[in-house]
């Protein structure tokens, strides 16, 4: 026991819990505000949407950011979760009285079913690379919703008439799930298994040569990501009714991908922030640009998207970005101890997937000091 405590002490770092602890803190504040009646309907509804978006974005980040495989079918897993989860919930309601218990059980079933399909779609991932895998996952998402559309049990084109959960409670439960998901994902990433996954992304050949079981990890990541996406789907199904197959088109998968790319591949914090921002921006555009102005909604969204992506990624903007960057002060400090990786978990968009390596033109790119977000944990300065 004492060994355990000393081990924990040796390993513990504040930043390891910073992410989920902050989310938890936000949640506590929100619960208090909610209790005081200070949150209006839109905010409460929006919070549930933010919660499932965060789960979707972080779980997709596992696949795209950490494993380095491009998936355009994440909405397909969500679709499975939403349909199966709410279906199971309606069955369970006959047997179990507690709404909360029904929700939890349906989340687990929805997640499990999605995970099984995650395994199935993980199989091609073993054979295919980059854009080919992307199109297969996109195809998978479209197949799933096409099939649900035609299943009478799930309401066919009318959608499955799920029963919504009380909005005031749903967002709290959803955020508790977010915290749990964050703990699980970050713990996983900060372990030897997480190292193995990032090793596959960085250099698959070397990873194989080091005896990393690439097959296992690729499938594992797809399964875990699908599981969480399925849970997000169940939350979605309890947020609104009916569960309609049109929602889960490839456009939605791409929106989740936008969250991941905007937040920075391989950055969980980034995914959380980007998921929140995109959901809020979408909501603001929808509610502010109503009536005749609605036609501008997509236009504004598109312009924001293009501008942000170009600003964030264009080599030409790099100096400006660095000048404006919040981490500039931090970066200066790093300079003193040259080349020592410092804590830069807050850095966005520092890691590129290997898709990059194969596919894009980079002759004049300066060799950047890419820092693996979690590589920092190996910096053991503080441990000694």
């Amino acid at each position, binding site marked *: 026991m004492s*060994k*355990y405590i000393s*081990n*924990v002490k*040796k*390993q513990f770092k504040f930043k390891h819990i910073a992410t989920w602890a902050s989310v938890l803190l936000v949640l506590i504040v929100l619960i208090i505000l909610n209790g005081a009646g200070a949150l209006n309907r839109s905010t409460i509804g929006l919070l549930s949407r933010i919660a499932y978006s965060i789960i979707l974005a972080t779980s997709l980040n596992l696949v795209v950011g950490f494993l380095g495989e491009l998936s355009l079918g994440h909405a397909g897993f969500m679709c499975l979760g939403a349909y199966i989860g709410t279906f199971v919930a309606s069955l369970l309601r006959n047997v179990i009285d507690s709404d909360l218990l029904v929700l939890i059980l349906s989340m687990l079933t929805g997640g499990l079913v999605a995970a099984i399909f995650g395994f199935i779609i993980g199989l091609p991932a073993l054979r295919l690379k980059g854009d080919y895998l992307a199109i297969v996952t996109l195809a998978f998402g479209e197949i799933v919703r096409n099939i649900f559309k035609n299943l009478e049990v799930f309401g066919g084109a009318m959608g499955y008439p799920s029963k919504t959960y009380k909005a005031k409670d749903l967002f709290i439960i959803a955020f508790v799930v977010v915290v749990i998901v964050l*703990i*699980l*994902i970050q*713990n*996983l990433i*900060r*372990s*030897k*298994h*997480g*190292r*193995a996954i*990032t*090793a596959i992304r*960085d*250099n698959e*050949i*070397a*990873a*194989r*040569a*080091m*005896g*990393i*079981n*690439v*097959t296992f990890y690729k499938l*594992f990541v797809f399964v875990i990501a699908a599981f969480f996406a399925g849970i997000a789907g169940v939350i979605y199904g309890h947020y609104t009714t009916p569960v309609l197959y049109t929602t889960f088109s490839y456009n939605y998968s791409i929106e989740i991908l936008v969250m991941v790319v905007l937040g920075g591949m391989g950055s969980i914090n980034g995914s959380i922030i980007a998921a929140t921002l995109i959901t809020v921006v979408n909501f603001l555009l929808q509610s502010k640009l109503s009536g005749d102005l609605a036609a501008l909604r997509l236009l504004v969204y598109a312009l924001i998207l293009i501008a942000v992506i170009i600003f964030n990624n264009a080599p030409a903007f790099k100096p400006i970005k660095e000048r404006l960057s919040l981490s500039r002060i931090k970066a200066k400090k790093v300079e003193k101890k040259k*080349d*020592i*990786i410092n804590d830069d978990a807050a850095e966005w968009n520092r*890691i590129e997937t290997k898709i990059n390596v194969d596919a894009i033109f980079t002759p004049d790119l300066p*060799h950047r*000091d*890419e*820092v*693996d977000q979690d*590589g*920092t944990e*190996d*910096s*053991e*300065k503080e441990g000694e």
Partner: protein
Amino acid sequence: MSDIMLETKNLGISFGGLKAVQDVNLKVKKNELYGLVGPNGAGKTTVFNMLTGVYQPTTGTFFLDGEELKGKSQEKINHKGIARTFQNIRLFSNMSVIRNVLVALHNQSGFRYTPFDAMLHTPKYYDVEVRMRDRAKELLDVFGLLEERNNLACNLSYGTQRRLEIARALATDPKLLLLDEPAAGMNPNETAELMSIVKRIRDDFDLTVLLIEHDMKFVSGLCDEVTVLNFGTTLIQGETKEALNDPEVIKAYIGG
């Protein structure tokens, strides 16, 4: 138990009808330092790729410590005890030095825990992680990389990267270490240092080493036996000095 660590029998491979390597018969004794030399394009790296499961040999087979490994996957072969370095360095360049080694420690029997231990951070997780780190530091110390452990692998000098790659390969606890041009790009000092390191790890880690190298000084100063390949076939095999002084070999090098 024989005293042969690696034995290949008529190992060969062809790509689309072209015989890249044929009839390679190696017998590497335990604890031996064995050299694989030959001019460019002779098929040395292809042999390594076959021995590590990157390519599947089209003819022949090979045994490690008496166990046939042909047809096994790269991972499996590594688990069985063959580790390698690459001609064009393949470090996890975006990872810190210590993390490179930690990745390689992945499969060692003492360092096992399930993904669920990881997700829930069970006591086992903490225990293993602490021990893994200690082990990684020990290994880095052997290669004089301890001070560099928090640097990014891509920021290291070329020679240091080579050393790190060997350290990483060693971390998988191999019986047989394949080094693909370990001294390439090194200055004479570094080469000399590398020679002593290779000798030392052979003794300390009870290793057998098979290496590809162009630097003949390095080979003759280090290897007990060599095989010379030319155009995918064995030119000569035997004691290092004799083999390297063979007129055929010299002709192959000068003529090729």
